[in-house]
């Protein structure tokens, strides 16, 4: 299997870049690309102290797999892909997502990483609640999902 997808409780096990890169290594692959998503300390003019991630895990993992398979359709079956998304509370600097791509040449790896993160942001059932330094919290406004059928084409609103 050359695709690994996972929703992981960050309180039990932090996301691990070494694990991600190890998965996408292969003798036929001369390139590896890594995308990291992390909690930043400011959003929309407000000071953020942490983010809680809520995930509908079974459908999220299925969407990750579909997106990775689409990437393989675009950039070849040799593409190895690793996706792990965090669930639970993370402080500023905490890793919320790791995407790793391994491929024979660099162009496919870079493009696949970009494709996978953009599609996840538009299509996967994940929500973040920002916690601010003033004690307030808010759910981040996101992309409305399309119904089944439309969604498989990667369309999104919002």
């Amino acid at each position, binding site marked *: 299997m050359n695709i690994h997808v996972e929703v992981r409780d960050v309180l039990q096990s932090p996301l691990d870049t070494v694990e991600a890169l190890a998965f996408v290594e292969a003798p036929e692959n001369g390139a590896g690309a890594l995308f990291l998503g992390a909690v930043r300390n400011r959003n929309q003019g407000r000071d953020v102290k942490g983010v809680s991630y809520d995930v*509908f895990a079974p*459908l999220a993992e299925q969407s990750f797999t579909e997106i990775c398979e689409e990437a393989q359709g675009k950039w070849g079956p040799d593409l190895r892909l690793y996706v792990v998304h965090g669930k639970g509370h993370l402080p500023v600097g905490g890793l*919320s*997502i790791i995407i790793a791509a391994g491929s024979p040449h660099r162009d496919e790896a870079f493009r696949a990483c970009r494709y996978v993160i953009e599609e996840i942001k538009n299509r*996967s059932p*994940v*929500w*973040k609640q920002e916690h601010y330094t003033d004690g307030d919290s808010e759910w981040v406004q996101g992309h409305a999902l399309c*119904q089944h059928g439309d969604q498989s084409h990667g369309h999104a609103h919002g």
Partner: protein
Amino acid sequence: MSEIIVQLFGAFRPIGSQMVLQVPADANVQAVRTAFAAKLPEDLHALLAVSRFADEHKVLAEDTAIGDNSVFAILPPVSGG
């Protein structure tokens, strides 16, 4: 009538982790939406309008019959990554 469970995510979380509804046995997703809306606080109706129902495998079209499925999820606009 059939008893179904709607799991709540994201901005629906403040009202709980799930909602139990009674719907006709031959209901479709639109009927689930109507039953869900009837128990939803007024300030969440705008969010419901841009949210989709799903099962563990796919986002469901409004005319999908619920069949033997008894567990659904309501998915507000997503913000992962």
